[in-house]
């Protein structure tokens, strides 16, 4: 009998248990961390509130509604120097989105091509891709932006060679096909001018794109349900182009092309791709493309070799093995790191100021901040914008990720 041993212990709570008792220890440390966090943030807020300049000026966003006073070169929406700082901010935000979207698209294309080719059996091609990846991802993107910008400014022909000489002779250089001109002040390309019914043609084209996707889905259904291979390429091209062309001519050609024409200093009319946009776009694309290439390679290598061999045993050709068997499975490995690469591109667009591209950091975080002196307000707003962009991209990509990830039934 052991009744006399181990009398029931008094279940009183002692303060030492907070540290020594594993039941409470984690709560104790979490509580301490929380208090430290709250204290840290309140100290920052207090410090800011005691700032002499802030006390004198107050914290206010009224400046957003005052005239900006400066000009912006790339204007996706109309803007003059008499418009408000808010409008300048919005233009900067749109410019950020423009270059981010462009760079995401081209970086993905570069990355997928380089990633697949790096696994090629051809020694030269795979080594070339290895050199591309190692070279571009190991040099800071700011350096690439500046290199490309400087090279573009110094290798493209000076715009003066396109100008009409005063003596009436022909200029040294002419437009390519009468439509394109690559100069050190940017690349001038034709612009589409929509007349009254032009939007009908545009709508038809958009509908055709939807039609192409519908045809692809149809072809896939046929393949999966009946095992028939329905041709995709040529019908898709026909669906894409024929209705648009028919509508275009039936309506009497409501969309015309405006070619750039030489003015006193530079080309008037047409559309100008500025060197700053080109440099930023291209640098972000090839830099991030190198990272995406590695993601793609990792995704493909993650698929067991047995899958390829099984597909080959069934008689599929290499191209179909890649597109029907390997890539669909590789996507669920590739997509999550791809999301963070897209976020990196979006955040790296803020390096735009190095080449004078008027993005959000250039307008709100640059000139507006500097002309109004409202540093805290501008930076907080800037953070809010970038946070919103990044979270939106994340949300969209996560939806896509859910659609391609392994379905567990």
């Amino acid at each position, binding site marked *: 009998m052991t009744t006399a041993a181990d009398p029931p212990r008094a279940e009183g709570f002692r303060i030492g248990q907070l540290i020594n008792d594993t039941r409470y220890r984690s709560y104790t440390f979490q509580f*301490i961390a929380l208090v*430290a966090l709250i*204290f*840290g943030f309140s*100290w920052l807020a*207090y*410090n800011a509130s*005691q700032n*002499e*300049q802030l006390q*004198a*000026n107050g914290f206010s966003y009224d400046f957003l509604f005052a005239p900006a*006073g*400066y*000009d*912006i*070169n790339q204007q996706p929406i109309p803007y*003059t*120097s*008499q418009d408000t700082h808010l409008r300048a901010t919005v233009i900067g935000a749109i410019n950020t989105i423009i270059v981010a979207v462009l760079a995401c698209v081209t970086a993905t294309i570069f990355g997928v091509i380089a990633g697949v080719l790096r696994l090629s059996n051809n020694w030269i091609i795979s080594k070339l891709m290895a050199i591309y990846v190692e070279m571009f991802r190991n040099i800071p993107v700011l350096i690439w932006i500046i290199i490309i910008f400087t090279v573009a*400014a*110094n290798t493209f022909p*000076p*715009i*003066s060679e396109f100008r009409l000489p*005063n003596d009436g002779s022909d200029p040294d250089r002419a437009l390519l096909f009468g439509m394109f001109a690559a100069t*050190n*002040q940017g690349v001038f390309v034709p612009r589409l001018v929509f007349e009254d019914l032009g939007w009908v043609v545009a709508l038809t084209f958009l509908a055709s794109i939807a039609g192409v996707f519908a045809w692809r889905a149809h072809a896939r259904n046929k393949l999966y349900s009946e095992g028939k291979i329905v041709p995709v390429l040529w019908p898709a091209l026909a669906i894409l182009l024929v209705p648009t062309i028919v509508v275009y001519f039936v309506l009497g050609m409501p969309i015309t092309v405006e070619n750039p024409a030489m*003015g*006193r*200093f*530079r080309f*008037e009319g047409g559309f100008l791709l500025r*060197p*700053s946009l080109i440099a930023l776009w291209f640098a972000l694309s090839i830099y991030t493309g190198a990272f995406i290439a590695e993601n793609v390679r990792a995704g493909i290598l993650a698929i067991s070799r047995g899958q390829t061999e099984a597909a080959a045993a069934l008689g599929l050709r290499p191209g179909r093995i890649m597109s029907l068997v390997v890539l669909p499975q590789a996507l669920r490995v590739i997509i999550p790191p791809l999301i963070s690469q897209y976020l990196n591109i979006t955040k790296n667009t803020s390096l735009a*100021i*190095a080449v*004078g591209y*008027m993005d959000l950091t*250039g307008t709100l975080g*640059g*000139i507006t*901040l*500097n*002309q*109004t*002196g409202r*540093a805290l307000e501008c930076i907080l707003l800037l953070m809010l914008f970038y946070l919103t962009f990044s979270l939106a991209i994340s949300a969209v990509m996560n939806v896509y990720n859910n659609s391609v990830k392994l379905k567990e039934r």
Partner: protein
Amino acid sequence: MNKSVLLGTLAFAGLAAAGASAATLDDVKARGTLNCGVTTGVPGFAEPDANGVWQGFDVAVCRAVAAAVLGDPEAVTFVPTTGKTRFTALASGEIDMLARNTTWTFSRDTDLKFDFTGVNYYDGQGFMVPAALGVSSATELDGATVCIQTGTTTELNLADYFRVNNMSYEPVPIETGAEAVQQYLAGACDVYTTDRSALAAQRAGFETPSDHVILPEVVSKEPLGPLVRHGDSEWADIVRWTLNALIAAEEYGVTQANVEELGSAPGDNPEINRMLGTEGELGAMVGLEAGAFKNAIAAVGNYGEVFDQNIGESTAIGLARGLNAQYTDGGLIYSPPFR
């Protein structure tokens, strides 16, 4: 115990941050050097020479203040600032004064909470174009591509000038003056605009300066001068009267060569005596020693000497005195009396 150490550290850091901007003069004396904000490099105004020593017209103001306060013109830490970073650097206390081709404007003086302590160069914004362009007036620039240094008053003046004259242009915003010049020389823009003094300074550094013309139009008033933070009037007085001492020294014929002699014993001119500290107590009134302004003049010379050595007609930059002559010679340079 650990927690109390943490709290103590935070509280101390808070106190340190709060006390950063009390009396600049005491801070400078305690530190032993003057933190002076200058440009990232404009020939003649502020640029390190071949030995890495900062030289120039604005640099001389920094050295004069250091000589007056600390007695040593070399006791200056030069902080290069861009058009964008300069005001933050001054407001945050990173620098004690800014001598950086900065235009005195209403909103900078009031809204940004700075004090301009005078004007050391009366300037105006101009345009530079390649001579080959065949442009002789700024009114012919409709449709041109213009390089500008972003975050400056030139950006706003440019927008106003083209708008008022119903002309269009393509702005190419660039962070620093040196990069803007590179872009201009590469032909990425047809026009480079900034203060005319800086245009002349930059052009002097070109391979063939005569291939570029500065157009006759002056599109703005740009009084450039040193500035300090609002709210420390004692420090503002020191910077203001050091600059005035250089100006008055030229007016009264006090030079780097004769200042020691004139400052050793009271002379005939009571104004010179008061300025150099041989009579009265002007130095003590601003919290400095009696010979403070004598030290400043001995360190860099009078205003005219500073001008001639750095940007005058005998230098590569070759600027005429023009508006920056003494009022006795028809210019605007004028010091209130030392009394």
